[in-house]
């Protein structure tokens, strides 16, 4: 199946599935139309939630004849997924499902995604395409430095790399020294992890004078926004090639799209996903090149198909053949979010989760501020709380207890650790309207 493009002289430029990755625009649209019609029929008959939504919009499956009818369909949002928790959007009996993943929701409950065996196979195919595009082959030894578990990063990258035939070392997260030891001892040639973590690894290697001892050639980084400057740093300091990989749990996980060595945008695998850009206010479709909210429709997914899912990621899309020969549309640099979600150390965090954690103090939320920054390539996450009389104490011990209690509940709610800082009343901005609760000082867009 592995096909090498003519331009490949260096082991780069690998197609995993040239027939699909280099289809003509007509072929892409024809395939998308065929698969969309089939998908709409499936969900209309199998998912009550979608059937009702379509009926409310006055739609029947026969109204959708191809991708030209896509904009008739109602959107799906993460509120829909939350309402359907846990399995309300499932289009198959649970006996046909083989896996669950989840990412944090806006409040207590996670957003769950379920997968059939075929969904896992398609995911592995998509990740294999991305890894192959990054230069990785079956001859490589890859360390997966994403968390294994409910988070899609670890298992998603793992299955894709195995599908590719590479030798996978499932490192997961949390032990940099062991990662470096195995990188040197096993002769690791590729790594998949967050870009900020890779920079952290680079620093550790430099500090120990070990950069010359590694055989690393490629990195596939994702799960958090990063800049061209960060990529340059990674490439120069480790003497490797690094590419960006994109995905989201609701849609599949990492591998929905990735960039090639030309860095002209993230190729989205259009034979499985239909991307659209909409105006987040008017909800109208926008033409290629214009910036708006990315909306994705899954046309092959069985477990939890999503129709016109609003990702809340702001970007634009370029159509047209890339220098690498691939014809799949390219998602451009992300310009932020149309909601207030933050990505901190690769984890999705909503201010509402922090608010919920603060309720634990005594049932009401004090004035607070979330401060996010990036210091030495690591995200910092601080929550300032104005000390009010109702939970103030004249004993330092009790104030410290309060602080660690809040830190624990934020950790439980979001999955990552925050530093809680107690501040004087009126130290934080108050306003009459919607008080600003987030200060993200990172320069990522």
């Amino acid at each position, binding site marked *: 199946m592995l096909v090498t493009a003519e331009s490949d002289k260096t082991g780069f430029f690998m197609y995993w599935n040239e027939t699909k990755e280099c289809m003509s625009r007509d072929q892409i649209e024809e395939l998308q139309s065929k698969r969309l019609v089939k998908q709409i029929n499936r969900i209309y008959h199998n998912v009550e939630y979608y059937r009702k939504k379509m009926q409310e919009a006055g739609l029947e499956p026969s109204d959708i004849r191809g991708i030209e009818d896509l904009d008739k369909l109602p959107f799906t949002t993460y509120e829909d997924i939350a309402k359907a928790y846990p399995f309300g959007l499932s289009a198959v009996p649970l006996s046909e499902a083989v896996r669950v993943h989840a990412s944090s929701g806006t409040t207590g409950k996670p957003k769950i995604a379920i997968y059939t065996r075929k969904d896992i196979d398609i995911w592995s195919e998509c990740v294999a395409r991305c890894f192959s595009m990054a230069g990785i082959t079956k001859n490589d030894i890859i360390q997966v430095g994403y968390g294994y578990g409910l988070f899609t990063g670890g298992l998603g990258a793992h299955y894709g790399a195995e599908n590719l035939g590479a030798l996978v070392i499932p490192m997961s997260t949390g032990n940099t020294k062991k990662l470096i030891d195995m990188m040197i001892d096993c002769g690791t040639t590729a790594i998949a992890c967050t870009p900020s973590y890779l920079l952290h690894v680079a620093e550790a290697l430099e500090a120990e004078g070990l950069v010359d001892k590694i055989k690393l050639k490629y990195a596939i980084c994702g799960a958090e926004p990063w800049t061209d400057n960060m990529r340059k740093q990674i490439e120069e300091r480790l003497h490797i090639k690094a590419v960006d990989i994109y995905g989201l749990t609701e849609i599949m996980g990492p591998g929905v799209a990735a960039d090639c060595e030309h860095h002209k945008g993230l190729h989205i695998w259009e034979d499985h996903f239909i991307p659209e850009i909409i105006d987040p206010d008017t909800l109208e479709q926008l033409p290629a090149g214009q910036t708006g909210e990315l909306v994705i429709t899954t046309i092959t997914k069985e477990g939890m198909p999503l129709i016109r899912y609003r990702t809340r990621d702001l970007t634009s899309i370029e159509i047209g053949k890339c220098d690498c020969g691939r014809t799949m549309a390219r998602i451009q640099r992300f310009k932020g979010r149309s909601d207030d979600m933050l990505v901190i150390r690769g984890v999705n965090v909503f201010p509402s989760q922090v608010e919920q954690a603060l309720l634990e103090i005594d049932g009401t939320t004090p004035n607070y501020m979330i401060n996010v920054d990036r210091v030495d390539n690591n995200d910092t996450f601080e929550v300032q709380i104005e000390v009010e*009389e109702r939970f103030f104490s004249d004993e330092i011990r009790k104030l410290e207890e309060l602080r660690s209690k809040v830190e624990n509940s934020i950790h439980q709610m979001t999955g990552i650790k925050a530093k809680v800082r107690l501040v004087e009343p009126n130290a934080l901005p108050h306003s009459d309207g919607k008080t600003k609760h987030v200060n993200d000082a990172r320069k990522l867009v």
Partner: protein
Amino acid sequence: MVKQLSVFLENKPGTLNKALLMLKNNDVNIVAISLADTSEFGLARLIVDDLEKGRSAIREGGYTSTLADVIAVRLAQRVGYLQEILDKLSAAGINVEYMYTASTGPDGADLIMKTSDPAKAEEVLAEAKAEVLKQDDLRKLGGDN
């Protein structure tokens, strides 16, 4: 038993100064003060001559404050006296959370202490014939003004 006014302060220049200015402008005299701090925040523990006025001045300044029951006790100026008192408290199962001095002189010292059980601590101290001060006595500690 007396009331202590505790004020939350961030650990940065000027915060204590501003709080004390509020007291000064409202003509509140500080009889005793103690500062406790961590790397990020601190607590000013104050015994003032006029509690009501002191607290409203602090609130007016936008500070978070709380009142706590503490014991003010006059100590004889002789070796071992404080230890003897603490001996009695610990024998009664009372824990001392913190303490600080209000004033010292040749005749004795005034000590402020926060205990796990202020009412019982006062009983124990009275039994030990220690001189426990009341809220009204505090004005005297501050001198004439």
